[in-house]
């Protein structure tokens, strides 16, 4: 007579390769966090005015307004570093969630029209309201991003089957094209607007002070928390619509929540730093190379890998063109793309 011993049920269904793999992934996360911290320190020390790391430590904890070094660090580099971490994390997360919701590896957060909506409203702000600083653009950009995403999602959810990945992608692309066309029309007809806009259009971390960071930080925090909770939901969605429904998932709510998270994250990030492409599209792929298709792991990894790229790009941008700088969006693509291409060549891509 045999009895089934009540061993730990999880051991029988060993999907993730066991506790060893989980330990490795956690170690990886901690390592990534460490790299982000190191890059933050570097970001505060490196620049047109080199500052030793000891001064950085002092400036943060024993701030002396009379010391120029401390001023540079707290007024210029601290906001920039914080923004780099927040914006990077936001874009990485938003990209991962977007690829999960649309089940399309070519999706990036801009697919909902967020970037083009933000750009359109910034152009309106410059032309009609006379806005001329980042702080004044922020709310317009955020409003434009939100509006675009709402329109795209509404159009895509018309019809019996709701906002399927294909319809989302096509509606987003159509609306992006429409908004970009209107934006371009304004830029071609109004030189003053163009002259201001072409600098916002290249995403940059420079020139944003703590006020800007303070404005968008709450949104980024909310969006991040929401996205990280969506891991399980995205896993279910990735099984396909029918299986997901069969497992009891409510597709409308799942997709809706995911879209809200993407809009908050990407809208706030674009509002603060301008459109920075590439991160949302490629970091999730790199994260998946490490973690596999489980969203509960690839979301945190996307969240930590993206700031690594963004901060590195920012630091490099400050160094290669002294005493001027190259904007972060440019350097991100320039260094991120070869790394990405090398990875794509080397490894078999984990499917979504």
């Amino acid at each position, binding site marked *: 007579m045999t009895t089934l011993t009540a061993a730990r049920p999880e051991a029988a269904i060993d999907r993730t390769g066991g506790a060893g793999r989980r330990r490795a992934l956690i170690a990886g996360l901690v390592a990534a966090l460490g790299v982000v911290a190191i890059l933050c320190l570097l970001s505060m020390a490196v620049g047109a005015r080199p500052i030793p790391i000891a001064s950085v430590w002092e400036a943060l904890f024993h701030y002396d307004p009379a010391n120029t070094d401390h001023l540079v660090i707290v007024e210029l580099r601290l906001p920039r570093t914080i923004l780099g971490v927040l914006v990077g994390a936001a874009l990485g997360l938003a990209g991962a969630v977007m690829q999960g919701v649309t089940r399309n590896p070519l999706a990036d957060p801009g697919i909902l029209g967020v970037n083009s909506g933000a750009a359109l409203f910034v152009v309106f702000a410059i032309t009609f309201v006379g806005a001329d600083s980042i702080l004044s653009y922020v709310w317009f950009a955020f409003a434009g991003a939100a509006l675009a995403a709402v329109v795209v999602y509404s159009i895509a959810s018309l019809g019996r089957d709701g906002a399927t990945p294909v319809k989302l992608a*096509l509606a987003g692309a*159509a*609306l992006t094209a429409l908004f970009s066309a209107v934006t371009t*029309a304004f*830029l071609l007809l109004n030189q003053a607007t163009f002259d201001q806009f*072409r600098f916002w259009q*290249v995403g940059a971390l420079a020139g944003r002070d703590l006020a800007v960071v303070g404005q968008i930080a709450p949104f980024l925090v909310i969006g991040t928390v929401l996205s990280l909770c969506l891991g399980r939901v995205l896993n279910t969605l990735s099984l396909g619509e029918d299986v997901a429904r069969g497992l009891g998932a409510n597709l409308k709510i799942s997709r809706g929540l995911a879209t809200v998270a993407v809009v908050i994250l990407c809208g706030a990030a674009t509002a603060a730093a301008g459109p920075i492409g590439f991160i949302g599209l490629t970091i999730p792929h790199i994260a998946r190379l490490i973690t596999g298709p489980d969203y509960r792991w690839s979301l945190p990894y996307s969240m930590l890998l993206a700031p690594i790229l963004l901060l590195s790009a920012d630091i490099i941008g400050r160094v290669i063109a002294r005493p001027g700088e190259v*904007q972060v969006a440019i*350097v991100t693509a320039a260094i*991120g793309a070869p790394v990405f291409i090398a990875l794509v060549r080397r490894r078999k891509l984990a499917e979504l």
Partner: protein
Amino acid sequence: MTATLAPTGLGAATVRGNRLQLRRRVTLVSGALVIGLVVMFGLSMAIGDFPISLGEVLASLTGRGEAATDFIVLELRLPRVLTGMVVGICFGLSGAIFQSMMRNPLASPDIIGITHGASASAVIAILMLGLSGFMVSLFAFVGALLAAILMYALSWRQGVAGYRLVLVGIGVAAVLTSVINYLMTRADVLDAQGALLWLTGSLNGATTAKMVPLLALVAVLVPLTLLAGVWLSGLQLGDDAAMSLGVRVERSRLLLILFGVGLASVATAAAGPIGFVAFVSGPIARRLTQGTGIALVPAGLVGALVVCVADFAGQHLLPVSLPVGVLTAAVGAPYLLYLLIVSNRIGSGG
């Protein structure tokens, strides 16, 4: 008793009937599109700052017109209209090919960096070398081809399978975009606005001199593409099924990419990256023909019609004159959105 492999009987008649119906619908749609194109041709040639009657247009085209109308018709309007139509056909075909091959509605030559290669070269030519006109187009063409070669070389690994080609293309596109952005922020605002005009896609610079090489290249590429289109339906089934059906997968994929790239390069060199046309022609054509296959000829014709209508609207229907690249989106996007709303059968091809 031998079993025959050829379909016979009622089943065969049904299949044949369906196929005939589909082909008939494709022909009908293509015919309607051609009629639309002829109408747009007439309108674009006749309407303008100097209205010319259709009779006079015909006279100029056949060499019997007066010198003044000849100049306007043959030097100003004809190159613009013909370039627009040809560019539209090229983009439409190229977009349809890429979308079918990648089996992804987001695929199009602009996603994978070919038009970015053309744009980056053109911006370098305009902003750093101070060139204009034909030289810019030449740079753009070379740039597109270089980008395509780079992309293919980087993604080759015993063949080009799956998403590798697209992802490498995205990487290449990102680098090129940052080059463009960098140059745009460094240049004088007047020059930058000129570059922006090129980047938007414009038929303003269409001349007879530029039109002739365009027509020559297209006359070679389009028939070849249509011939190669036969393989598309096989490739759509997936590599294994295609191979078992006798399609030489790698070779046909290479040739199709070559033709798609060639068409997009030629069109971008001539008029700038009027990207949305490539993206939208395939889906519109598929919905018009209500087939599940790739309708290449209708896609090309839809592209041509979109470009013509957009240019006409940009020149004559608005209080300010806008380039065609702005209006293709204004024309194509609402129609695509309408189709999305109305259609209930959205297949995986988009």
